[in-house]
Every structure is written in structure tokens, then in C-alpha cells.
């Protein structure tokens, strides 16, 4: 188990990352003067970045085999298909 002890990623660093990103997000949302659409893109970008950090490091997806990663990824395109197609309605 010696190997495992050394192989833990630096969780505190990731925690710092996440905390800083959250502060930046709130800052961007309330202090900056971007247009609405730029703002949405920026905020989504930060949210995805944070989500990826959690998935890759906390949920160890980075260290899993490809087939387990596939299981994690399969539903995402499906959910996107649903949202994108229904948005096409252009109601």
C-alpha cells in the first residue's frame, strides 16, 4: 500500500482551486460588465471547469480505465440531445 500513499493527488490544492473559482464566478456574475450572453458562456465555462475537477480528481475518473469512464460519459450526450432538440422547438 506504500504506492497508494504517495499517489493521492493533492486534494487541498484542488479544494483551493474550487474555492477560488467559486469566488471568481460570483465576482464575474455581479461585478463585471459583460453582456448577458458572454456572461452565460463564462459562467458555464467556470462551472464545467469545477465540475471536471470534481469528477477527475475527487471521483478519480482520471485514474480509471477507459470502460468505466465510458459508463460515466454515456448519459451526458443523451441528456444534451434531449435539451438541444427540445430547444429547437423555438417556441
Amino acid at each position: 500500500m506504500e504506492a497508494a500513499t504517495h499517489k493521492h493527488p493533492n486534494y487541498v490544492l484542488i479544494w483551493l482551486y474550487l474555492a477560488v473559482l467559486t469566488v471568481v464566478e460570483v465576482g464575474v456574475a455581479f461585478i463585471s460588465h459583460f453582456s448577458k450572453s458572454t456572461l452565460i458562456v463564462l459562467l458555464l465555462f467556470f462551472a464545467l471547469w469545477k465540475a471536471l475537477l470534481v469528477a477527475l480528481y475527487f471521483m478519480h475518473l482520471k485514474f480509471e480505465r477507459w470502460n468505466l469512464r465510458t459508463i460515466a460519459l454515456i448519459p451526458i450526450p443523451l441528456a444534451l440531445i434531449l435539451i438541444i432538440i427540445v430547444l429547437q422547438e423555438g417556441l
Partner: protein
Amino acid sequence: MSHAAADNLMLPSRSFERGVDAYDIKLGMWVFLASEVMFFGALIGTYIILRFSVDQPWAQPGVILNVPLTAFNTFLLICSSVSMVKAFAAVADGDQKNLKFWLFMTMLGGAMFVGVQVFEYIKLLGHGFTPSGYREGSQLAEHALADPLKYGAATGGLYGSTFFTMTGFHGFHVTCGVVSMTYLFFTKALPGKYSQQDYRGIEAVGLYWHFVDLVWIILFTIVYLV
């Protein structure tokens, strides 16, 4: 890392390496999380569709919802995610004391998150923000009448519906996580039943917990900030 650890697990006859190199409970949790993605996908998708296909403006961020409070809550959940992963790292290293400590901190963080959310709900309902929109005669409804653009008066009903459904179900998931962690804490972690060789319960509940955190990261952004 977990890869190396899993190989050393003293598991019963299960031949996990034939599949995806994950033992049953871990694989089962991932499969379950896939279905959770679809569940939250349906809720979030509904929100996106309702919000962006309606012509009327939505209430501006921070006008109705208390963003600083929720930002703090987000921070709390991120902290509990870190403490969870610390607990996992501790048990993987065979450190019982730290496992108990960090697992307890995670439970505490989760419980506090739920507490803050309940407080938030009570406040919002008190102001007149309900699942069906701005309650008639409430303070909020009057504000909305005075400044319909800022308060998204025309879409208040959808705002209330989607907000309470999404955050409510997230809160429900957090509660489930806290309950199962408490159960594991008292029946497994305290008696020292987890070991360097078998910490499947911790890893699985950890996966669930991080997923809930991940969902919140998305929800916080799209519900409170956009």
C-alpha cells in the same frame, strides 16, 4: 491510485477484473450515477427549456435569491467534498483515526448544507417566493408589480417551479447522503470495520457525495448566477 488499491482488496469470489476493473459496488454506484445524470438532466433540461423559450425576462440574479448565503453554502459543500476525499485517502492508507475524523466532518458539512438550505427556503417562502410563483399579497409580489422587469413578474411562476424542484431534489440527495454516511459512520467506521483491504462502502458513498457536489456546482451557477 484506486486502481492499485483495488487489486489488493481481499474480495470474495467476485472476479471483478474481467469487467471494468472495478468491484461490484463501485461499478454499481457508477451505473446508478449514470441514471442520476439522466434524472438531473431532465430537471435541468426542463429549466433551460422553460427559461430560454419564454420571451419574457427572468428575474435578475441576486434579486430574489440570497447569493452570498448560497455562495457560502457552495463553499461548505466543496469543503465537505474535500473532507470526504480525505477520509477516503485515510482509509486507503489504513489510517482509522483520520477516517473517522474526516467522515464526521463530511457528515457535519452535509448536515450544515441542508440546514442552510432549509433556512433559505423558510426565508424565501416568508418573502412570498413559492413553487407557484410570487404569493399574492406578499412583499415580493408588490415589488414585482412595481418593477416587473427586474423581478421577472411574468415568469415568476416558472422561476418558483424550477427553482424549488431543482434545489429541492438536490437537497433531498444531500440528505440521503448524510443519512447513509451517518449509518456507515456508526455501523462501520466507528467499530473499525473498514481497512486498507476493504473500504468499498467509503469509496461508493464518496462517489455519490462528489456527484451531489458536482450537481450543486452546476445548479449554483445556472440557478443563482445566470
